[in-house]
């Protein structure tokens, strides 16, 4: 059945909503929200319809020629395979829940129509990344995601911290994207094509075609993912991006933007997994280090959203590590389940903040579970899924990643140990959050008067809670594996035992330390280390002292050159000398007829002297 128009409709509906809101309904809050929510939910339904009618498997494409320059032909095309279609469902499904929730959360904000326009633009950009069938188109949508995330993070731009955070996110992403662009150029220069299908066929027939550039190409492409997926050392933007409205955090940090990096790695996995390439090893270790660093930092954060932010960075590290050990299927599996439960956790946190008048410090909460039962219970379910407690969804996906570190050609016991360690930390900091904020007695007045959020906000929580709990039984990895290859997992029993043990240890530690605690007992026990964790390992300070200082120095020099050499000597010099000569010549213009006549006669005499006198 020919349904080629459906993916186009899915892609452009959110854009139409964004354009419609910006052009026509900026004054109408209700209509704007309905347009935006309607667009994404329609996209979701159409996506389900497409899969139901066409099946999930078999790569199909639909494209129109866009650019034809010399030997380069770029299509504006959509690639429809298991990877992109499932990702499309995640983006529109989880995104749809977040849209609905936003309507409740942003009810009192005067900028609501603008908010929904940005949200729709973001959805459009993200769908473009997911559906793109070539590097150039993917890169354009990649940048569009950067722009729309800038707009969303800086939504409350009158707050300086939010404006700074949006700038930071955008610039940090740009650094990664620069490498990504170089990688795209390198691929085009050596292989002569940007089309994913053609590149894959080319590399399959001759894996050594990139020669010595194999590793470089892989790493440059990874640079893009490093920026978007907030991997060390470009992870600094993500926690700051919490300055945006909470639903934005859920959208950007759970289901979409940060997932784009991992999605990209899986999409171009054929380019990374080549004989003679060391790109995967680097990717695995960067992912592992990111996971560990972020999990450690999360231990000592007091801001509920920052804990979740570092948890996101940590889980993204997990996924990147999974790609690095040549296991893209578990990576995408974890991405999927993570999208469900992390969106749930963020929205739950937003619901709590909404009730507590935006008090973000967990030590000023307490007992939220008893006053906000729906939020509390769904948050607890999300936490269990994140920690990997069976039979919640996170257990299955995380377990596959841990098993993948011990399987295949890229196995690494060190990464296995790291992954298990991070699993312990994850359980520990998440239950620290739950015990301190949700259980026990209220610690501050705000928490005592908290009331459950309206249905518009709790309904998305309930909807997201369902896949968070049961997605493990949905045969998701099988669907991905059809395209990305079945991982041959060894030592699955060991991995499962380790991950269960990690949950147990983390939980026991958290209960022992935080059960009934008034202040954080870990700060005293860890001493100097706690201080470092609290300051996020001084990454911001380090960048301030090195990158930003160097940049400022360069800017100062450039400013001096501009001010003194270009504007001073060159522009003002020309202007000044002209003026000086003019002033001198003006003295001759006395307006006195006698002197004119005398000078004329003198001139004639001089000319005559030279003409006749010699």
């Amino acid at each position, binding site marked *: 059945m020919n349904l080629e128009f459906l993916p186009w409709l899915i892609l452009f509906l959110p854009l139409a909503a964004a354009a419609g809101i910006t052009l026509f309904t900026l004054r109408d809050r209700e209509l704007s929200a309905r347009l935006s929510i309607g667009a994404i939910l329609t996209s979701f339904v159409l996506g389900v319809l497409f899969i139901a009618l066409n099946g999930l498997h078999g790569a199909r494409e639909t494209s129109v020629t866009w650019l034809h320059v010399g030997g380069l032909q770029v299509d504006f095309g959509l690639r429809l395979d298991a990877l992109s279609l499932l990702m499309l469902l995640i983006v529109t499904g989880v995104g749809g829940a977040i849209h609905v929730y936003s309507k409740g959360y942003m009810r009192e904000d005067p900028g609501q129509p603008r908010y929904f326009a940005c949200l729709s633009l973001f959805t459009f950009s993200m769908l473009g990344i997911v559906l793109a069938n070539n590097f150039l188109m993917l890169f354009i949508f990649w940048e569009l995601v950067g722009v729309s995330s800038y707009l969303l993070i800086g939504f409350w731009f009158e707050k300086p911290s939010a404006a700074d955070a949006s700038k930071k996110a955008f610039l940090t992403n740009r650094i990664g994207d620069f490498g990504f662009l170089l990688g795209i150029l390198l691929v085009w220069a050596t292989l002569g094509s940007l089309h994913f299908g053609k590149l894959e066929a080319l590399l399959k027939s001759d894996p050594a075609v990139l020669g010595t550039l194999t590793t470089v190409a892989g790493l440059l492409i990874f640079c893009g993912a490093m920026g978007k997926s907030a991997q060390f050392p470009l992870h600094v933007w993500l926690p700051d991006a919490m300055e945006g409205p909470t639903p934005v955090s859920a959208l950007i940090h759970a289901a979409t933007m940060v997932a784009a990096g991992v999605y990209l790695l899986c999409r171009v996995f054929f380019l990374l997994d080549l004989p003679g390439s060391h790109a995967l090893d680097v990717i695995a270790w960067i992912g592992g280090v990111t996971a560990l660093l972020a999990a450690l930092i999360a231990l000592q954060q007091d801001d509920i959203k920052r804990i979740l932010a570092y948890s996101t960075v940590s889980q993204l590290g997990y996924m990147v590590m999974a790609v690095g050990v040549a296991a893209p299927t578990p990576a995408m599996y974890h991405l999927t389940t993570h999208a469900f439960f992390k969106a749930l956790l963020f929205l739950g946190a937003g619901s709590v903040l909404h009730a507590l008048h935006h008090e973000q410090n967990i030590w000023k909460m307490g007992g939220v579970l008893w006053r906000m039962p729906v939020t509390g219970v769904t948050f607890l379910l999300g936490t269990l899924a994140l920690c990997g407690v069976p039979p919640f969804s996170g257990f299955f996906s995380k377990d596959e990643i841990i098993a993948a570190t011990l399987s295949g050609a890229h196995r690494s016991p060190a990464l296995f140990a790291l992954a298990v360690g991070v699993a312990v930390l994850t359980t520990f900091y998440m239950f620290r959050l739950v015990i301190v904020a949700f259980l026990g007695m209220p610690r501050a007045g705000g928490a005592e008067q908290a009331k459950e959020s309206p249905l518009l906000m709790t309904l998305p929580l309930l909807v997201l809670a369902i896949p968070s709990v049961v997605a493990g039984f949905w045969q998701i990895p099988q669907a991905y594996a059809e395209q990305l290859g079945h991982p041959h997992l060894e030592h699955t029993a060991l991995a499962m035992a380790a991950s269960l043990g990690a949950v147990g240890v983390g939980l026991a530690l958290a209960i022992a330390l935080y059960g009934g605690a008034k202040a954080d007992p870990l700060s005293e026990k860890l001493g100097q280390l706690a201080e470092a964790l609290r300051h996020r390992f001084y990454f911001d300070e380090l960048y301030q002292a090195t990158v930003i200082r160097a940049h400022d120095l360069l800017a100062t020099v450039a400013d001096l050159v501009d001010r003194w050499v270009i504007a001073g000597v060159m522009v003002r010099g020309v202007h000044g000398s002209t003026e000086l000569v003019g002033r001198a010549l003006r003295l001759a213009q006395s*307006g006195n007829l006698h002197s004119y006549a005398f000078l004329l006669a003198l001139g004639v005499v001089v000319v005559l002297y030279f003409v006749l006198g010699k």
Partner: protein
Amino acid sequence: MNVGLEHYLVVSVLLFCLGLLGVIVRRNLLVIYMSLELMLNAANLALVAFSRFNNNLNGQVMVFFIITVAAAEVAVGLALIVALYRKHRTAHVEDLTWLRL
């Protein structure tokens, strides 16, 4: 005494210098104007003298042109001077310096 070309030329030069001197030193526009005419006529004298002594009529034709143009010029020039005098009640060059920067 035999009067030759040199005599005419000397008179012509003298007249020209007198005219130039008048232009340079006199203050009244009308007198400056008369001095200019003197310079023109010095040139006319030289041209006529050359014409006479070289047996060539070209010089005399040139003189006719100069006299004609000078007559037109006098008409315009005098009209300007009169207009200037009416407007500013002066014909002294020291007072007429508005074109200076």
